[in-house]
């Protein structure tokens, strides 16, 4: 086994053995894409939730597909950071292309729930040059460890499910925030264990509280890692995109609630006697600093400021591809014009044939005047 195979095996192990979701999803994918499998089964499973509500069993399978996409995304980050080479082994490429190019899977990560890292990885598999900016293997190492609980921890899974608007056993995100407001409730839920319940599963609200705590402690660590990547914009952006969906949710819907929860934890301080406050001034100060750091990190990561480089790469490459196809269709013998995000800005609603033709006729090489 080559060094590259060994490294791929380690990432695969995390997503297919230490966590089971990706393995289950791959099995579903294989069954659904067999020659005799009923058509449209996969497209229905991977539909947008606005088309029709998602039931419980579908949720778990779709979670598995998210893990499978996370696996491909982690491999992409491995390539960008130098842990893996630019060109991956052919057996891996065959599997990744088969999954990522499948129209139903593609619609899932491109249209229904846009994720840019699988799209970026597909560009690599299609032969686009995505060379690394410099070797940063140690960053991959840290990022992999930091991200592992998102696959293996049921507490984190529960919290993220709530963050996504879901409910379980009658509890949801609001209940999680409420539980954080009282020190007694906090203590009860944060110290609960799976073994406490007869079915060996941790109570849902306890799991969500513990998932929340993990998430707010994770945020400053991720931000530190992203700052270590300053000067490596594509890698920095890729690391953010790996968790970007959750920070997007945080920013648009419930960021204020999370901030309130952190403030509520801080307010416990007011219940202490002045003697205890005097004795513990140093620790109280450290606690305040930690909460401020968590709030700042959550706000910063939810702002979307790290998202641009990967999105640009994907949009520009997709537009260039559309142009090439159109040129071939129209039999225009001319070099494909250079594309930048600026030049496709006006095509944001989707490259229409007319707009693309005008782009070919009058190639734009830089940002538009209005953007300069």
């Amino acid at each position, binding site marked *: 086994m080559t060094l590259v195979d060994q490294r791929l095996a380690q990432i695969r192990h995390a997503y297919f053995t230490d966590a089971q979701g990706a393995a289950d999803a791959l099995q579903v994918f294989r069954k659904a894409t067999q020659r005799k499998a009923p058509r449209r089964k996969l497209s229905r499973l991977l539909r947008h939730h606005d088309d029709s509500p998602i039931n419980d069993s579908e949720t778990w399978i779709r979670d598995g597909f998210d893990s499978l996409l996370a696996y491909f995304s982690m491999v992409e980050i491995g390539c960008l950071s130098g842990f893996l080479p630019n060109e991956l082994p052919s057996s891996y490429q065959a599997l990744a292309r088969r999954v990522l190019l499948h129209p139903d899977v593609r619609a899932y990560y491109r249209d229904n729930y846009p994720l840019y890292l699988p799209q970026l990885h597909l560009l690599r598999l299609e032969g686009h040059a995505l060379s690394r900016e410099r070797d940063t293997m140690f960053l991959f190492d840290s990022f992999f*460890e930091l991200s592992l609980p998102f696959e293996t921890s049921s507490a984190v899974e529960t919290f993220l499910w709530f963050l996504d608007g879901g409910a379980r056993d009658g509890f949801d995100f609001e209940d999680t925030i409420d539980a954080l407001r009282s020190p*007694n409730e906090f*203590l009860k839920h944060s*110290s609960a264990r799976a073994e406490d319940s007869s079915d060996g599963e941790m109570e849902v609200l306890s799991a969500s509280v513990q998932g929340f705590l993990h998430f707010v402690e994770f945020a400053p660590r991720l931000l530190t890692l992203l700052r270590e990547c300053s000067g490596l914009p594509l890698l920095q952006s890729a690391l953010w995109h790996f968790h970007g969906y959750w920070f997007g949710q945080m920013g648009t819907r419930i960021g204020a609630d999370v901030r309130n929860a952190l403030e509520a*934890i801080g307010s416990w301080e007011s219940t202490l006697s002045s003697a205890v406050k005097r004795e*513990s001034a140093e620790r109280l100060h450290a*606690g305040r600093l*930690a909460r401020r750091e968590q709030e700042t990190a959550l706000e910063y990561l939810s702002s979307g400021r790290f998202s641009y480089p990967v999105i640009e790469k994907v949009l520009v490459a997709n537009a260039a591809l559309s142009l090439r196809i159109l040129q071939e269709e129209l039999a225009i013998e001319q070099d494909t014009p250079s594309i930048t995000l600026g030049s496709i800005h006006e095509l944001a609603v989707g490259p229409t044939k007319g707009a693309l033709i005008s782009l070919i006729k009058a190639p734009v090489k830089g940002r538009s005047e209005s953007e300069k």
Partner: protein
Amino acid sequence: MNHTLPMVMRNAAGQPWSAEGRSRFALTEAPKGVVIFIHGFRGNALDTWIDFPQRLPREQKASGYDLLFYGYDTREAATISAVAFRNFLTAVAEKPAAQVVNSSLPKGLTPRATKFKYQHIVIAAHSLGAVVSRLALLQCVNTKRVPLEWLSRVRLALFAPAHSGALAANIASLLLFGLPAGKVLGAVASRIYRSIYDLTPASLTLTSLERDTQKRLEVPGAAAVSRCHRAWVAHGSKDWVVIINQFLEDYQIRRMSGATHLTVCKPTDEHLEPLQFLLEVMP
């Protein structure tokens, strides 16, 4: 890179060895040693150590060591946690290939030879983890109560050990994002966390620990095996949680300037002492 990525640590039956336990194996056929990390009160197998899992593998000296991050439920009595840790330690010392390494390695990576054994076993423990480790070492005896031979290969590196006890209110405060728990909440915490009683200064657990360790150090003709009970110890100058004093024949305490109870075991760019300390203990 000299080590695998972090992965779940599994026993021969394929079950996780401990809660959130992780392993990073040296990419060599026969590493000379292993470092076992064991966290403290309400800690976590990996999070307690923050940057250790990434920083240690970058050190040349660590390239010949497997790194195991053990987790346990700190609500339980320290002696109960020690029983589980003793079982784990015994597996690591006696049958590492079959019971820890090969069952955790991804398919495709070269498994270790069945007869493989570590020459050195370093236990890096924080706070309550130090008490659990010391109790576990005392339990490593054969049916005739004779200490096991492989103890001579063990070294203890203790970060802010709680072997002399802790201030109950302060240890309970660690439950609440570092906020002091106050008397009422402290009482609630004590009902949930049995280990808080163990950490009360002069508790039965700590008294027996000191007495039994003393006896073990005095066993005639067993110097090699007894050496494992002499620990290397580091304390932060700003630690207000545990009681700091010399424990029996431990080596002289290393003072980490500016470190608190929680930061004493977390190396950062500005605070590399925890890493240096551990590297010094590793043979």
